């Protein structure tokens, strides 16, 4: 029963997206469909985690074809955790988008739903070609979102993003063709262990992994990420930071564990690249001058930490990597949302234009500093547990150089996050909130189209909302509703940090499913 619903996680958001594409009004119905669909997926994700607890693998074969021929949707602990985490983040970001007024643009809701459908499909599919299709389903709405929402540079950022991702997709497709040409199947379970036995498969699959690394933002192919994320709108940047690169990372974990069976020949090479990514991202972040570009470079650094888990392999390394992945998604999205709240209210994200927010916005300051400490790796937040288990894993694998880089990059992260904290939250107040809309200021929850229509300055207000959705609250401060999404995620990080044992137990199960793939293979083709 639970397994038969697996394809729905992919289909339901796409269906809801198609409906919202046609039916625009009323706005509350649009919001209800958006929140309801993502909320339902979140609930189902929790059910999946419970159902896969203990190493069960759920399979849904499409069209009742026998296993191995059918295109399967597969859920094990790793997929279940990822579905739950991505649904939670999407829900929180959508809540932020609603409060910030971004969803008044008709196409916000349908494209976010289509994007999420692609993400869920990519996390659950058991077929390489289907993975390609799901990643495309995820990317196409992103192309639209990135060029539609955001500041004046959004089209430029959109161009970089689209060109780069189309090239990466082409490389991915070539890789799939090579894999099929060499071994004649694209089913994950059929491919299991193939790359360890045959060098030709290893090379063909290597092309796929390179494409996934491009999409994940691994140094040296990370340049697109910090050039695009700061230019879109706050809610979109937060959604992208939580979902996009993480799907690529998930696929790298899955494919390396299944197809390469953790082949040790390539691991040293991978550790080197991950160390480069950690160090390079953390160093670049120090020199940036807007909040979101600092965060984007810290994200590149974080990708190094996450993929170090797969580079170390073994049950310990994988469990640490998956734990860090979940922690990083939550914390990074929280930071992007606090930065977004500042930007929506104060109209800028430049470090030298902001100051003294700690006194004015205590809620937001708490959300930011909590998430920042978590990113750096301070107890009691989740970052401490994440980095601690990663360090343990690198010592266990005698990767002392990686352990050194983990610590050094953390110090650099401290430096860059400290810089943001100092210039944005401490010091003198350098900028008052944007509150120029006067009487036309409306609360985020109202159906603003009607308000705008009945107002003389309608055109100007609409224009303003299109460019940045700044004036949605008549308050002079960041409203609690705008700060709440970031705060919720910071508290989630705190909760994970305090109850690290529980989540670590789950990620160890997920890692066990990756190191010993026999139950996965048996569930998919053994029937």
């Amino acid at each position: 029963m639970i397994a038969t619903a697996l394809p729905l996680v992919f289909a339901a958001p796409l269906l809801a997206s198609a409906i919202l594409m046609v039916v625009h009004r009323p706005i509350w119905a649009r919001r209800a469909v958006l929140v309801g669909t993502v909320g339902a997926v979140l609930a189902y994700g929790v059910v999946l985690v419970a159902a896969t607890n203990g190493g069960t693998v759920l399979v849904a074969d499409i069209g009742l074809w026998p296993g191995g021929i059918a295109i399967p949707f597969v859920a094990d602990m790793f997929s279940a955790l990822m579905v739950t985490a991505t649904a939670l983040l999407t829900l929180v970001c959508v809540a932020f988008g609603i409060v910030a007024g971004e969803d008044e643009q008709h196409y916000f809701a349908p494209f976010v739903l289509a994007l999420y459908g692609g993400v869920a499909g990519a996390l659950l599919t058991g077929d390489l070609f289907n993975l390609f299709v799901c990643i495309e389903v995820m990317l196409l709405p992103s192309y639209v979102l990135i060029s539609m929402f955001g500041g004046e540079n959004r089209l430029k950022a959109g161009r970089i993003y689209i060109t780069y991702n189309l090239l990466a997709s082409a490389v991915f497709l070539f890789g799939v063709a090579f894999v099929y040409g060499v071994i004649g199947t694209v089913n994950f379970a059929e491919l299991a262990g193939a790359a360890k036995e045959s060098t030709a498969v290893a090379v063909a699959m290597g092309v796929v992994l390179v494409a996934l690394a491009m999409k994940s933002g691994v140094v040296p192919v990370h340049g697109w990420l910090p050039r695009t994320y700061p230019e879109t709108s706050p809610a979109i940047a937060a959604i992208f930071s939580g979902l996009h690169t993480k799907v690529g990372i998930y696929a790298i974990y899955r494919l390396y564990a299944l197809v390469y069976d953790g082949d040790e020949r390539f691991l040293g090479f991978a550790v080197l690249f991950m160390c480069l990514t950690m160090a390079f991202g953390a160093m670049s972040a120090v020199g940036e001058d807007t909040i979101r570009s600092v965060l984007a470079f810290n994200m590149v650094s974080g990708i190094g930490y996450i993929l170090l888990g797969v580079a170390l392999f073994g049950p310990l390394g994988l469990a640490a990597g998956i734990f860090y992945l979940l922690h990083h998604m939550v914390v990074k999205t929280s930071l992007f949302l606090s930065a977004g709240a500042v930007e929506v209210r104060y109209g800028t994200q430049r470090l030298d234009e902001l100051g003294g927010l700690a006194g004015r916005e205590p809620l937001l300051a708490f959300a930011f500093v909590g998430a920042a400490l978590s990113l750096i790796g301070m107890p009691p937040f989740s970052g401490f547990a994440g980095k601690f288990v990663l360090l343990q894993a690198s010592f266990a694998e005698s990767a002392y150089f990686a352990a050194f880089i983990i610590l050094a990059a953390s110090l650099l992260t401290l430096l860059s996050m400290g810089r943001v904290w100092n210039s944005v939250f401490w010091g003198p107040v350098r900028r008052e909130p944007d509150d120029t809309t006067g009487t036309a200021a409306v609360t985020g929850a109202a159906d603003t189209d009607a308000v705008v229509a009945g107002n003389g300055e309608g055109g100007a207000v609409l224009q303003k909302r299109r460019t940045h959705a700044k004036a949605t609250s008549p308050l002079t401060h960041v409203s609690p509703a705008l700060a709440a999404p970031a705060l919720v995620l910071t508290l989630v990080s705190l909760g994970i940090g305090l109850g690290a044992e529980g989540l670590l137990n789950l990620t160890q199960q997920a890692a066990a499913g990756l190191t010993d793939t026999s139950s996965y293979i048996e569930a998919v083709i053994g029937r």
Partner: protein
Amino acid sequence: MTAAILAGVLVAGGVYLVLQRGLIRMAFGVILLGHAANVVLLAAGGLYRREAALIDQIAAVQAAADPLPQAFVLTAIVITFGVTVYLVALAGSGSGDDTEETT
């Protein structure tokens, strides 16, 4: 061999066009890259087997074409088509955007 050369030429042209400034040229580059990927996908199924893959009509199974890569190509064509339409729309709406060197 023919397929390999064809794919190589298409990729070379595609990469050259994608690196151009104008968005329309980039769209053409994406089309060429998509075609190259399709040729490689078809070649992956074996170009020497060309009979229809209808179970009750083929004398020798060995001669039947592999239908799976054809399904892949069909999907890939649809995706490339969608992307092309979007790129052309973007080129139309943002004409004059970022097409000249500004230093």
